[in-house]
């Protein structure tokens, strides 16, 4: 079904999160790489050796949440824009996501929160914008916050009035 829709099911998404939600009291990388393609920048860019792919670069990356610090380097290193960092704080879900469209969001703006199907699920607050530069492979990384129940649904942001 995934080969037809390109929308990961909730089970697939949950399988990429730590089993124990408490682990997300610190930021952790969520790697949504479900398709075996020849690619390994997440592994080679992680300064903490938390991501393993191995000799066969077609293998699906495995993450060690004990080693992951949620630094977000993999977020802008992933060519497939398939990695985000998630964290739970004061009952809210925080995400660092890659964002490659213009105009860029500004801190404190309210944007729409969007799920993997492209549907709007709620609105969200822009917490931080790390603009694209050479060291981030020209990818902007945006930190957003929204209500915790959307933890497994949120994937990207969309500007309001579109």
């Amino acid at each position, binding site marked *: 079904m995934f080969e037809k829709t390109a929308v990961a099911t909730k089970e697939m998404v949950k399988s990429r999160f730590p089993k124990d939600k408490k682990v997300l009291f610190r930021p952790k990388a969520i790697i949504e790489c479900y398709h075996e393609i020849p*690619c390994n920048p997440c592994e080679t860019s992680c300064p903490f050796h938390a991501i393993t792919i191995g000799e*066969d670069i077609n293998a699906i990356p495995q993450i060690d949440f004990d080693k992951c610090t949620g630094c977000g380097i993999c977020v802008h290193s992933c060519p*497939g824009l398939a990695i985000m960092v998630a964290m739970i704080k004061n009952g809210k879900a925080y995400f660092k996501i890659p964002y490659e*469209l213009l105009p860029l969001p500004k801190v404190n703006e309210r944007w729409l929160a969007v799920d993997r199907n492209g549907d709007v699920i709620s609105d969200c607050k822009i917490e931080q914008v790390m603009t694209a530069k050479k060291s981030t492979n020209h990818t902007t990384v945006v930190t957003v916050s929204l209500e915790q129940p959307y933890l497994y649904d949120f994937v990207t942001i969309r500007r309001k009035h579109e």
Partner: protein
Amino acid sequence: MINRDLVIIGGGPAGLSAAKVALDAGMNVTLIERFNQLGGQLIKQTHKFFGSKLQYAKTRGFEIAKILIDDLSTYSEDRLQILLDATCVGLYPDKVLTVYQYNKYLKYKAKSVIVATGASEKVLAFENNDLPGIYGAGAIQTIMNIYGIQPGKEVVMVGSGNIGLIVSYQLIQAGVKVKALLEASSTIGGYLVHASKLKRLGVDLLTNTTVKKALGKDQLEKIITVRLDDQWKEIPGSEKEIETDVLCISVGLSPLHQLMSMAGADMLDISELGGLVPKKTCDYETSIKNVYACGDVTGIEEASSAMVEGRICGLMAANHLGFKHPNALELENDLNNQLCVLRQGPCGEKIRCGLKKAGEINV
């Protein structure tokens, strides 16, 4: 007649990579490029590449082109001659080449030739497919990413291979609304991470669907789509209308084999490789001695593989003429290993199957 050790036809990822290794081995090289700049399709690619560090993974395509071109900048003009706006219009078995540039024909005689001509886009037959507003994906990328022109307001993409998926994403980045992506087969053809990116941006991915006809007076105004069953037969009554001013066709590539065919090289017709390809040895030599081929002209694949193949080809051309690359053996093993790794996953199944049919052993 201009005499050279090596003439490379095509300045894309394969040709540029071949030039670098051949120059390192001591050959003098002429590189022929049809466009007004080097880089081939790489210069239109704004997305980050897959693969590993060895193929510049996570670097954007146009920046990989810069790296490959910069790699050649240390060589003097007598070692490396670059011909831009130059089309090779003749390749003969005795390695004489005719090159057309600025209304003149130049004649070259090479000790070796590397054919790295790449591929051309396949077309799709449907009613009114010649209406203005209907483009191939390569043309869309050229006007959008080289000349900075928006191709239209709205677009429907036909084909869900990596090119269709990537160009759809680039169109959204350029401010064009992608109304739908049609795929005749029952599943998405390219990398699913690319498709997921489109889906989350609100693009409808319509599998088992193709374009039946285009409608419009002076230019494209709308298209009629039709659903297909699993035998790719139209399902009557499933026609739907979509208003759009641009239709982008991305239904695959065919190797640009014409020069190889002209030179009389043994050719094979292998659907998994995209059509007619030159038969070649594991040293990338075609049936004509000291004529080599690499990149998409030998089988449609990703640019990562084209770069690796190009390097191998440059090394082989040098080896066979007695030019010694400083670490030839190590390099050859490493490059062959890189190709194996790139091709060994499920996405490499088609190319593995094609190469097996072609009788290549390095699979």
